[in-house]
Structure formats: C-alpha cells, structure tokens
C-alpha cells in the first residue's frame, strides 16, 4: 500500500478550497484515536482528520461547514478504499448508515462500486469542487450493465471502447468509468444530466440502450438512482442506483431500465427486513395446501393475466389466449389449493405479494421459502 495515498486528494482539496494542511503523526501513548479513516475532530481552531491509525491531517483555514467535512471524508475514504479492503467496507457501511436499512443484497455491490472506478472518484471530486465554488451540477448516477461475448483475440479493455463511444455520442460527458468485470458482465457508471421526470429518464435510457445494442452490439441494461442536487446527495444517489438495479429480481417481467422511484411497492419491500417477509408468508399461506415454490407455472401466468386484465376474467382469457372456461377452471383450482380467489383484488394482491417475496427469498437465501405451519 502506498503510504502517501492521502496526498493527492488532500492537495486537490486544498487547491479547491484554499486551506493549508499539515500531516501529523500520532505518537505512541497519545490520547488520540484510534480513529477510522475520515473521522474529524477539532484541535483549537483547526480541524483534524484521521488518515490511518498513525497519521492525521490538521487543516487551517477550512470553513466550518459539516457538508464540506463530509465531502472530504468521502474523498479520503474513496482513496483509502482503493488500497485497503477494510476501508472499502467502512465506506459502504457509511453509505448504508446514512441511508437506513435496505437489506444486505446491495452491500456487496456498493462496496464494489465504491472501491472500484477511478471515474467515480474523479467525478466526485469534480462535483465537489463545482459545488464548492457555488455552481449547481444536478444529475443522477446511472449504472450501465452489458453482457460481453469475447471474440477470439480480443481484449476486454478494447471491447469497452465502442460502448463508451456510443454512450458519449448519445449523451456527451456522462461516462464516469468502468467497473470490474465478472462472469461476462461489464458495467460502467454514468452521470446523467437532469431530466423532466422519471418518464423522460426512462425514455432517454431506453434510447441509450437502443443505440448501444444497434451500434455497440451488446445487450445492455441500466438502473438510475435518485437525483442529486449537490455532493451531500451523492451517498443517497449511489445507494438508490444500486437498489434500483436490485429491483430487477423482484419481478417476473424484465424491463431493461430501472429508475428509482418508479416502483414504490418494490422500495417498500426492499426496506423491510427478511423477518417481516417471512412473517407475511407465514400468515398468508397458513391455510394453503401448496407452498408458493411448488406452484405450477400456469398459476403464476394466470395470476399475472388476471392482474393485467384488472381482474376481468374475459379480458384475462383474451390476454392469455385461453378459453374463458379453461381460465375459470384454473382460478378455481388456485382457490381450492390456496384459499384465495384471485378474482377479488385483495386475494390477488396477497398472492402477487407471496409470489414476489418468495422469489426474492429464494434469491437472497438460496432456499425455498415456506410457511411455518
């Protein structure tokens, strides 16, 4: 690990904000610390920030603004996180702590993102500097994923180039940086300019994926997080981008663009701990003769058809290309086995929730969720 890793971010910041800094060593027997990287304390009229267990920086001339200190912590943690796994975890924990409990599923991705792209760091610093000089640079993070099929003799690094070119051609100055590859999947973070509303964002990202497929010829998907107005919103912007990406696993259908805020029901699910999911399943399936994991595929299709047809059986039969009587038979079989008549809104909603939660629990725990009877 480069022991001087903090010099670059501190220098950048001191230039941007006009403060001076001095690196100090925490002497043996000192009452100071140990502090986690990025922790602030005050000594006289100076603010000090911990760099590692042995070093801290004293800053003179730094404006007394919590936001600025948070921002500098972020930058230092980001820099530290690139060299030390422990700090990556700390970084992610900080984001998670800020944003509340959102389940463990997103944490590995957060750690991965936070510790990975140079682009994110550069953008963060650029954003921070812009913000500090009074300009407002609004936008949101977009996490672009694409599948990668290797042609013989082709390098991954060169394979990213057409995609980056396409993205920049569609929306200039958005590319922040690529994220590590895993199992044929590549991803990159983009900084997307403000949009009118979520529909507008959805439309723009769908078009982006269209040109990516047509010109870069790769299959791509994207998630977009909550809009950020300044650097203090970045943790939330990043977290919600990751959470939006994880909403994919909740639904049977597979849209290719996931915008945070478009599916509030899924946000609610994501905010609930697994124990609440299990409790819901226990109650919902207590009279059922069939665990959700054992439902025939045609039941799920039937349920989705009925919901898509606003509980209208004739319309659902038309949508599903079934004879009405065939559909009625299926509905009756579902009622007999589960106790729920999906022609009623409440019953259909319960089974939809059961289906979605079971699916998610299978993904998260690798096991089939069953009612504890």
């Amino acid at each position: 690990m480069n022991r001087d890793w903090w010099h670059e971010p501190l220098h950048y910041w001191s230039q941007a904000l006009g403060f001076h800094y001095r690196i100090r060593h925490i002497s043996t027997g000192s009452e100071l610390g140990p502090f986690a990287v990025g922790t602030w304390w005050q000594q006289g009229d100076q603010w000090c920030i911990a760099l590692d267990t042995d070093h801290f920086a004293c800053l003179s001339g730094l404006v007394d603004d919590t936001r600025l200190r948070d921002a500098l912590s972020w930058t230092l943690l980001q820099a530290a996180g690139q060299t030390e796994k422990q700090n990556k975890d700390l970084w992610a924990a900080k984001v998670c702590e800020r944003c509340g409990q959102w389940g463990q599923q997103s944490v590995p991705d957060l750690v991965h993102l936070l510790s990975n792209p140079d682009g994110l760091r550069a953008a963060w610093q650029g954003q921070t500097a812009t913000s500090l000089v009074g300009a407002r640079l609004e936008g949101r993070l977009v996490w672009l994923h694409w599948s990668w099929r290797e042609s013989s003799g082709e390098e991954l690094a060169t394979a990213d180039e057409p995609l980056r070119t396409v993205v920049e051609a569609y929306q200039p100055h958005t590319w922040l940086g690529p994220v590590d590859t895993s199992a044929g999947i590549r991803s990159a973070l983009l900084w997307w300019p403000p949009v009118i509303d979520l529909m507008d964002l959805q439309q723009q990202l769908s078009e982006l994926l269209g040109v990516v497929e047509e010109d870069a010829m790769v299959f791509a998907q994207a998630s977009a997080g909550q809009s950020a107005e300044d650097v203090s919103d970045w943790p939330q912007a990043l977290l919600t981008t990751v959470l939006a990406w994880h909403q994919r696993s909740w639904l049977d259908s597979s849209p290719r663009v996931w915008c945070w805020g478009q599916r509030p029901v899924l946000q609610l699910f994501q905010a609930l701990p697994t124990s609440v999911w299990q409790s819901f399943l226990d109650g919902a399936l207590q009279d059922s003769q069939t665990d959700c994991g054992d439902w025939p595929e045609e039941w799920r299709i039937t349920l989705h058809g009925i919901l898509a047809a606003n509980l209208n059986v004739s319309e659902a039969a038309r949508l599903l290309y079934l004879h009405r009587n065939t559909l009625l038979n299926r509905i009756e079989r579902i009622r007999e086995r589960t106790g729920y008549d999906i022609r009623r809104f409440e019953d259909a909603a319960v089974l939809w929730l059961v289906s979605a939660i079971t699916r998610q629990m299978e993904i998260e725990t690798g096991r089939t969720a069953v009612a504890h009877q």
Partner: protein
Amino acid sequence: MARVQLVKIAKRYSGDVLAVNDFNLDVADKEFVVFVGPSGCGKTTTLRMIAGLEDITEGDLFIGERRVNDVAPKDRDIAMVFQNYALYPHMTVYQNMAFGLKLRKMPKVEIDKRVRDAAQILDIAHLLDRKPKALSGGQRQRVALGRAIVREPKVFLMDEPLSNLDAKLRVQMRAEIRKLHQRIQTTVIYVTHDQTEAMTMGDRIVVMKDGIIQQVATPQEVYSNPTNLFVAGFIGSPAMNFFRGELAEDGGVVRFRAPEVNLRIPEGRYPALRQAGVVGKSVVLGVRPEDMHNDEVFLSTYPEAIVDLNVEVVENMGSEIYVHSTVGGQNMVARVAARYDMHPGSRAKLALDMNKVHIFDGETEAVVPHHVAEAVASR
C-alpha cells in the same frame, strides 16, 4: 445475403424458466419471415439469440454456412432495428446514419456513398442536415431503418419497429418496409405481436406461443388452415368464433351440438372426423366471421347450419358491418354486407358455411383435418 437456420434452439433462464424450446426454422436467403405471437411467447428472445444479444442454451444457429452460436454480435453481419428507433439526439440525420460505419472505421468516401444511397432509397435525402427532434415519427423511423441499411448486412433483424407509430403511419410504413425488402433483396426476420402486420408483411409467418412454434406457413395457409385452436384464434381480425360442444352421430348423421347450436356436419368430412376419433367427443367448432351469412341463398343452402341470435352490437365499417352477439353463452362476431339492416335488439339468422368451419379436438386443441388424406399426411 444469407440463409438463417435455427436447429433445435432452446433458451433457458435461471430458475429453469424455458423461454424458447425446440425451435426449428430454415429461413431462405432473401426471405421475409415474421415471428408473431402474444407477449411473452419467446419471439423477441429468439430474435435476440439470432442477433447474439442473448446466449443460446441449446441448439445450433447458422447464418449462411457458418455456425454462429459463439460468434460476437458484431461479427455476425446483421443489423437490427428496434421499436424505439433510437437515434443520437445531438447528431444530424447524416451523422446518425454514418455513426455505425465510423465505429467500424470505414473510409469516409464509402460512408458518404452508403449514407446518400440509403437516404435516396428511403426518400430522406432532404433531411440529412436535420436533427432527430426536427423529424416526425415516420421520418425518424426511416432514419432508424437507414442506420441499418447502410451496413449492408446479410440479415436484417427487426423487433416491432412500427409499434411506436400511430395507426395510419403504421399501415404506410408496412408497405414501405415491404417495398424496401423487394428493393434491397436481403433476408429479413421481423418480430411483431400484431397479427395484421404479420399477415400483410411476411412471405412466411411463424406463430409462437409459450416459447414453442405453433405453425410455420404462408399467411394464407395459416389463416385458412390453422393447425390448432391457438393459431386459429390468434390470426384473423375479428377473431375466429368458437363454440365448445360435442359431435354426436345419430342415424348416420353427425351433428355438432352446443347450447343454442345444432349444426349438421357435411358428409364429406365424416371420414376424417372418424379417423381422428372425435365423433362422440368434446370438440370446439371454429368459424370465421366472414363465413357466417345472412343471405337467403346461404340460409336455404344450409338449413341445418343456422344459428338464431339476438343482435347486441352493430359496428358499421362502411363496406360491411360487424354483428356482435352471444350464442349459448359464447361471444360471437359475424361480418355481413352493409346493405343488410341490422340493429341492436333485433333477431337474426345466420348460416354457417359448413365447408369452411374448423373442428378442433376438445382435449388436445389440435385441428381435425378436413380430409382423410390430410389426416394421414399430418401423421
């Protein structure tokens, strides 16, 4: 120019969800083939497997003579056009059309020639300096097509390219794409959920449901001789009318019986019905709206093939009228000539053209062929 062969193609997603199964198709060079089916039937997944945007779980895919399962999309010599006709908003039409070629590092002179040629074909040469926001929906769609044409690919893959257009423009663009195909003479695989689009555009259509091919044939063949109940109901607008009932034989005469329906089956169809083993069993009788007539000639020719109904809704289409009714609890539509005075609440008699009705096995939903020879041939 290329032939495209799909041999026992399957696509399985995690969780063992089978999106496409046992898909066999041979698309001839320069052929225009349309995949049609309801949403979720696997048509787009199949197209994307051909494009290389989805992995193939099982089976072999050939473009030309080359197996391309493991070939990157950019090396398959294909071009794609999608529903959202994505264009680069900051570029002119010319730049939009040239961009894909620039990415491939093609010489400028060649790019210029191809762009101008394609613009000529699509009649958008006067729009080359405009940006997408200054174009109408139809013009944007032409530019999207132009972006594909300039590549001069072996195969065009089109995924619902007209879905974002309004109804009138869609009809116009259908014809434009057909004309374009005739002009550039390239293999086209086209996906749509719209059966009218499929019927009017394809040399052959591939009807799909639940990831499985239901029928591959020319539009007329699919319309006239559907292989099963699904195809019969999916193709045709208004859809084919179905009556669920049973075939009963009484004194050497086979009759179809359902609530409020009692129809004599023509003798010529007995051998095939007997061979299929459906006499005395539950069947579905299908009749197209245009095969139900209220002319005196038909009523007198088929006195034992008449349904008596209460007219519920009349849709006047100008040249003809659609008569909606309910017979034996089953919805029904008939197309009759506009000269007849039909109005809601009135009674009407309609004779079914029994030589054109379709009979489907009540259990398997497969069609019972009209003739024994067909029955033998189909086995």
